[in-house]
């Protein structure tokens, strides 16, 4: 299978762990928010849930590269980038819109800015491992 991108090899594994951490924390955050106080800030909590799905899809598709999953990984990471940019800007311009925090509020400042950097790393990694690209990992002819 020559077309499989090795997104789950080498340094990509550390990246995937970060994605998994964000998927689970966003999942945990949104589910407790929605279960315990859904009516307080439905937009913020709905957004948290959406972010959780985006991170989960990115995690899975990066960890399981394939003909269908890798394009999905691109899509998820691009949506993630758009999300952090749009929500980040909105929360700075109009804080009232999201009365409770989400992962992407203020460009992820509550999470050490990692949410802002992560999609860039994700895109860089997808680009780096693209077919015929600068894939230099000598040790990565597909094994799994």
């Amino acid at each position: 299978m020559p077309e499989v991108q090795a997104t789950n090899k080498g340094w990509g594994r550390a990246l995937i762990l970060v994605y998994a951490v964000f998927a689970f924390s966003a999942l945990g955050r949104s589910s407790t928010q929605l279960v315990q106080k859904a009516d307080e800030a439905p937009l913020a909590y709905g957004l948290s849930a959406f972010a959780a799905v985006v991170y989960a899809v990115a995690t899975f598709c990066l960890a399981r590269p394939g003909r269908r999953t890798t394009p999905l990984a691109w899509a998820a990471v691009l949506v993630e980038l758009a999300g952090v940019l749009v929500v980040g800007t909105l929360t700075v311009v109009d804080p009232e819109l999201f009365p409770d925090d989400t992962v992407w509020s203020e460009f992820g400042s509550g999470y050490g800015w990692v949410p802002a950097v992560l999609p860039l790393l994700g895109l860089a990694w997808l680009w780096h491992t693209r077919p015929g690209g600068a894939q230099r990992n000598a040790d990565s002819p597909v094994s799994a």
Partner: protein
Amino acid sequence: MIDPLQTVLIVLSLLFAAVAAVHVALDRPTGGLLLGIAALLELGLLAQAIIGIGQLVSGDRDVNGAVFVGYLLGALVFLPLATLWALGERTRGGTAVLVVAGLVLPVLVVRTQQVWTPSGA
């Protein structure tokens, strides 16, 4: 929560990240030293979970119980999964997973403490 244990966990997991980083820098595969520290950390996390849940059940503290237990169990499950993921590839990239794990754990421990002490006092 019992603060000394949390402090030990934070220091130990930062040490774990540092040792893993040295392994990455020197291009050494994950070995006994790293797995030993991971095992020690996991024991500490198990103790934290047992003590934490015990204190939650026995006390009548105003704590968001579900979130608190979520963090305790999350930290407990996180390290073995991250270690398995790291061992899936015995390369620098694999060991780099442990650096990330060692940096994420202190955050989980601090968040656990914050949930336990809602006012932040």
